């Protein structure tokens, strides 16, 4: 397997500019490009695949420059959002296509196609046509077709977003299982943060043409480097406070920041613990399965707190007049 590396890659069109200073998918790693639509993640993937050409910079596979190498010589497998199965070929023919292009002997093709279809759980479907399959099955065929040629890099462009929620969750687990089994370097594009968190070794979060932060899901979630990252993943509290003697306070809620002057504090709702007191006031709450999300007003600022119902020190039916807050982990951004 290979390490995919992007160095100073640039691409412009009309009023949009994509620039990636450095991005790396290491050998055998599952890297997700996450971001809102129009951030350039699909373009980045297409440049790695060789369908689009960067206007500057380099794309490297194991240190070898790939910019001028056509897609069919890059050793990639790609799965598209709409699967792109060849409608005039059976499942078998679709999966066999890449092997035929590589002039693999007939006998060997049969065995490899069979194994690939087994890997994705589609035995016995060889003679069906794509139109006779459900969306989930089509996606499995697309995956088998990409994997059967034993690519060095697997590229997935929002492969699950056309499926309904239940199948999506099931398939993403399988994609992850297969990727681990084969140990193949994988680059995955999605706009779904939950999917990205669930599936990735590392996530590259993108925003209008740049990579904002790269890191493990936990790093991005608990230690975002920018406000965009903080707000894109999950819910967040961001406070701007004035620090004195290493402490910044909002009413009775204080943080040991170890700095002086203006600071921006970031913390997740689940880091906020509450007990009856008088620092803030519960203004509203929302029930989630087994949990509750509280809106607490502290000196005119709304702070979100999320707790399991069974660990609240009071009953949510009879909330106290005031609450004290404790934030166990936070960071400055």
């Amino acid at each position: 397997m290979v390490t995919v590396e992007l160095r100073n890659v640039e691409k412009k069109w009309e009023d949009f500019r994509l620039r990636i200073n450095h991005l790396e998918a290491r050998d055998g790693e599952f890297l997700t490009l996450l971001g809102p639509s129009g951030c350039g993640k699909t373009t980045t993937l297409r440049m790695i695949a060789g369908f689009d050409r960067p206007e500057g910079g380099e794309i490297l596979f194991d240190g070898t420059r790939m910019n001028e190498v056509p897609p069919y010589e890059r050793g990639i497998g790609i799965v598209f959002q709409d699967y792109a199965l060849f409608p005039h070929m059976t499942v078998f023919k679709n999966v066999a296509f890449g092997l035929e292009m590589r002039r693999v002997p007939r006998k060997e093709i049969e065995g490899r196609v069979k194994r690939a279809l087994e890997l994705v759980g589609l035995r016995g479907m060889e003679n069906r046509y794509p139109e006779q399959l459900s969306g989930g099955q089509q996606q499995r065929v697309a995956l088998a077709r990409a994997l059967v040629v034993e690519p060095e890099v697997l590229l997935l462009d929002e492969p699950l977003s056309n499926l309904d929620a239940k199948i999506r969750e099931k398939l993403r687990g399988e994609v992850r299982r297969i990727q681990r089994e084969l140990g193949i370097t994988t680059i995955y594009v999605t706009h779904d943060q939950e999917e990205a968190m669930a599936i990735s070794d590392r996530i590259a979060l993108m925003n209008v043409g740049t990579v904002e932060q790269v890191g493990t899901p936990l790093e991005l979630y608990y230690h975002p480097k920018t406000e965009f990252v903080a707000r894109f993943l999950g819910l967040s509290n961001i406070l701007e406070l004035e620090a004195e003697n290493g402490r910044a306070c909002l009413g009775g809620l204080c943080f040991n920041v170890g700095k002086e002057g203006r600071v921006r504090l970031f913390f997740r709702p689940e880091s906020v613990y509450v007990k009856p007191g008088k620092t803030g006031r519960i203004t509203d709450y929302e029930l989630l399965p087994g949990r509750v999300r509280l809106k607490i007003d502290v000196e005119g600022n709304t702070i979100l707190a999320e707790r399991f119902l069974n660990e609240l020190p009071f009953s949510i039916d009879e909330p106290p007049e005031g609450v004290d807050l404790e934030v166990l982990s936070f960071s400055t951004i």
Partner: protein
Amino acid sequence: MGSKPSKIILLMPLVFLLVFFYIPLVSIVKTGLWDGGLTLRYLGAVLSNGYHRHVIIFTVEQAIASTLLTLVLGLPGAYIFAKYDFPGKRTIKAFLTVPFVMPSVMVALGYILLFGKNGFVTELVGRDLGILYSWKAILLAHAFYNFPIVIRMVSSLWQRINPHYEEAAMALGARGWRLFWRITLPMISPAIFASAMLTFVFCFLSFSIPLIIGGYQYATMEVDIFTQVMTLLDFKTGAALALIQITLSAVFMYLYLRSLEAYSKREEQRIFQKPAGFGWRDILSIKGLLMVVYSLIVFLFIVAPLLAVLYDSLRFQGGWSLEWYRRVFSPEYNPMFGASTMVTIRNSLAFGISTVILSTLVALPVAYILHRWNFRGKRLFDVLVMLPLASSPVTLALGYIKVFHSTPLYYTAAIVAIAHTVIAYPFVLRSVSTALRKIRPNLFEAALSLGAREWRAFLKVELPIAMGGVIVGAIFAFAMSIAELGATYMLAKPEYTTMAVAVYRFLGSRQFGSASALSVMLMVLSALSFMVIERMGEEVW
């Protein structure tokens, strides 16, 4: 981009077009404008001559009138097809392809048999309606050919208009005529305009119909050029006329291609509105009755000329007989066109098949270039490769006579097949390009990612999916080849006479029985083409 040998394959068709279309074209320009130096003498002579001026004006007038009649006849059909589902809809829709593939010599013969002195309609009414050998017959025959285009193009767009537009307008208080005028009409107008432009171009270049049922007074420019060259041997005047014709038709063709662009843009929305059911009970309403009457008229309009020909071919000396067919299939030499009728059938088939092969070989690489490559001047390239559509067979043949008369190619079977190819190839190109455009681009990318080179991805993935378009284009080329009259007449020596030319000769000597029997043979070939096209279910334009 491809490797070297593939580029050579891609360039071959362009060389073919250069030699067999552009050089003859330039030669006509030279003949019309050059006489030891640049001269406008011949153009001036044509334009100041009363007869030629009359012909030019008449050509445009009849094309406008034919287009209007075609729209009148086609638009109600488009409405019915877009809005209603009824028993037999598929069959009727299929039936509308029939005129496309029917040779115009045969249709002209049908009109003679219907409206002539002893015609069926003439005898039914009891007097000569004065339709034949006048502009009326020309208009009717042109409408016969083109109203299915209007029905197909307009109804296909009409069906795809997002129903929410009309519903929103209705919710805002628009209904009936105002709804149609303000909302529906603007939505379907690209289709109306594109189909009208195509009809106009076809009528403007029409040859066999005015030649046979128009007479001297109602000649089009195409007929006029033919007469100048073939009867009067006046190449200079012919070339000057051809110049005017090419210029005008190129302008019309450009307008057509532009309107087609607007049309396909709208069509791409592909929102399909399920038509309302139309059962037997609905026929009893006024609307239903009008629809039935319209369908009957259309039906008669299409089948009447065909039935007239079939009937006539089976009548011999006042009784039913297969005598005319016996004569058609006899190996007897016919001095009128210098071959036996059997040989003309063989010739037509041979030219038809050569045209299919050649025009596919020319069209496929051009379609590939247009589909796959992006380069500066691509729009101009598109226009240049489609320009043969705007040239007429007679003009093309005139160019061939000028360019090739002293080469060994002249007077061979090959040059006839080549002429047919240049005439038919734009239809193959259109058909293939349309089919290729419908394919999602990521199928191609998927093939590349799996290790296929560009041309293998094209051959193994895109071409098989577009095969319907290729076959329809090829069959269309076949139908055009066997129906072709003008260029064949001008370029083929007697032993290469085709069925269409033989029918024309029979008509000239008023041997209607032989003409009818041979026309029925043509009809059978055309009907076979029609069935293949219908099975593939692809649109040519």
